[in-house]
């Protein structure tokens, strides 16, 4: 007779699930060659643990036990299916024959990387990469992911099913890419992590500006990646996220409205995160093979060490933007550089650059470009022009807190300028 699991054992199994379930899943996917079968096997292995451990005690190596039990359970499952679908028997037999060698620790850690690289495979659509990574690597439920992205649960579920079908049908391999394609594939992983972070920090729609849970997941994921694959850019991305996250306590006022960087109470910044982030940037820069994330992190670190906007080392920031533009040219980075130039050389110089960028047309629908232009006009005392551009910016706004900040500026300027219409 099985004795029922005591509450203490149930707690132990629950914390084991938290700590180990993703590792076990990652290995099972490799051994079984199928996401769905591996997920079922993981579930079955934990159920078996709850049945057997009260009687036999917790095994010495619970993770190895769970992997091996999961594998046997999957073979059982295939055998049951084989009674009605002969093709399953062959798979069961093959799995049974390929007894995995007791996994080396290194190989098992690689499984987690394989899982990350597969979920972030460039053949999958970007939104599916994010969904799959959050579900399979971070263990969020479909419902949680859907609510974080303000998407209906059935839509999110569909996205995940299609991504898994694609992995199966397109034969996307379950492996860590070879050295020669590592950089490109790593970019895709970093991009997914940064997308998750940004959605948590600058929610793209909805009334709430931030979803800290998503940012926390992204930071955890970034740290895991650095642990598994100590590449400079992975370090740079983690540094960038930590340095931005450090400002979170100072970002919103009591009404939940946005406070711009220069107006933030910097005593609220999280010094521990700033130190961690700065140390990571310095290390990444020292390794010499860094890219855009590390450079952005370096810029964030310069802000992090400044006591106020005025005391910021703007020449250094402009210099870092110059390097960044050489490695990854983009109109958005040019815009940020223009704002830094305004801080270094004066509003007029900044406005000239912003106007050139807007004339180019590439930033037409990009709200921060309008907002920056309006802001520079306001600082130059050209209130009528500023008012008009803030109103243009408002038509582009999809986010509550962002909209309220623009409306506040419009209200300030409308009351300050005598009506001249």
């Amino acid at each position, binding site marked *: 007779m099985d004795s029922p699991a005591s509450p203490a054992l149930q707690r132990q199994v629950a914390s084991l699930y938290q700590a180990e379930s993703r590792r076990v899943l990652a290995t099972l996917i490799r051994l079984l060659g199928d996401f769905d079968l591996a*997920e079922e096997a993981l*579930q079955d292995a934990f159920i078996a643990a709850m049945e057997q451990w009260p009687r036999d005690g917790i095994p010495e190596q619970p993770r190895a036990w769970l992997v091996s039990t999961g594998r046997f359970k999957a073979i059982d499952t295939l055998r049951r299916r084989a009674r009605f679908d002969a093709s399953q028997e062959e798979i069961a037999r093959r799995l049974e024959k390929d007894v995995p060698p007791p996994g080396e620790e290194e190989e098992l850690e690689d499984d987690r990387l394989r899982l990350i690289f597969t979920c972030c495979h460039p053949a999958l659509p970007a939104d599916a990469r994010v969904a799959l990574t959050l579900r399979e690597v971070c263990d969020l*439920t*479909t419902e949680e992911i859907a609510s974080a992205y303000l998407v209906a649960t059935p839509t999110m579920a569909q996205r995940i099913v*299609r991504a898994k079908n694609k992995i199966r049908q397109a034969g996307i391999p379950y492996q860590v890419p070879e050295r020669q394609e590592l950089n490109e594939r790593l970019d895709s992983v970093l991009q997914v992590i940064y997308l998750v972070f940004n959605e948590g920090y600058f929610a793209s729609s909805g009334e709430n500006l931030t979803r800290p849970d998503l940012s926390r997941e992204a930071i955890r994921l970034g740290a895991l990646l650095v642990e598994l694959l100590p590449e400079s850019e992975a370090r740079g991305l983690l540094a960038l996220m930590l340095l931005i996250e450090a400002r979170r306590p100072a970002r919103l006022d009591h009404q939940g409205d946005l406070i711009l960087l220069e107006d933030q109470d910097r005593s609220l910044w999280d010094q521990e995160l700033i130190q961690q982030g700065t140390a990571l940037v310095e290390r990444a820069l020292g390794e010499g093979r860094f890219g855009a994330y590390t450079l952005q992190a370096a810029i964030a670190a310069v802000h992090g060490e400044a006591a106020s906007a005025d005391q910021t080392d703007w020449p250094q920031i402009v210099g870092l933007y110059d390097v960044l533009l050489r490695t990854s040219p983009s109109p958005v980075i040019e815009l940020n550089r223009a704002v830094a130039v305004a801080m270094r050389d004066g509003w007029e110089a900044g406005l000239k650059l912003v106007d050139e960028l807007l004339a180019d047309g590439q930033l037409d629908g990009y709200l921060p470009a309008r907002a920056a232009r309006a802001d520079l006009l306001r600082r130059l005392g050209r209130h009528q022009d500023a008012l008009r551009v803030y109103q243009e910016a408002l038509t582009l706004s999809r986010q509550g807190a962002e909209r309220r900040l623009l409306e506040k500026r419009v209200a300030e300027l409308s009351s300050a300028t005598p009506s001249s219409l």
Partner: protein
Amino acid sequence: MKYLCLVYCEEEKLHGLPESPEDAECEAYCETVEASGQLVAAEALEPVNTAVTVRMHQGTTSVTDGPFAETKEQLAGFYLIDARDLNQAIQLAARIPAARVGCVEVRPVRQLQP
């Protein structure tokens, strides 16, 4: 004999009319049948916009948004399952053998608010 009693209703009427049932009343009735030893399982469902329809044709799972709507297909059975999330429920639904020839509508159970 076991019998399955299926509740059909226009969603807006279910909660919108003076004679529409309150959750507490549904719960109370459920308890009566349970006390009589005749209840196997009873649940309320979330609205139809939470539904997905799952098919497993030629070994591939496909999911469409929304309820099943093919009038030729008739209700043939049911599973009440406990899954971690909607995707796990879809995995189980896709393996229901009839999903190979028909489809399975998956709907979250609604927590009654007494």
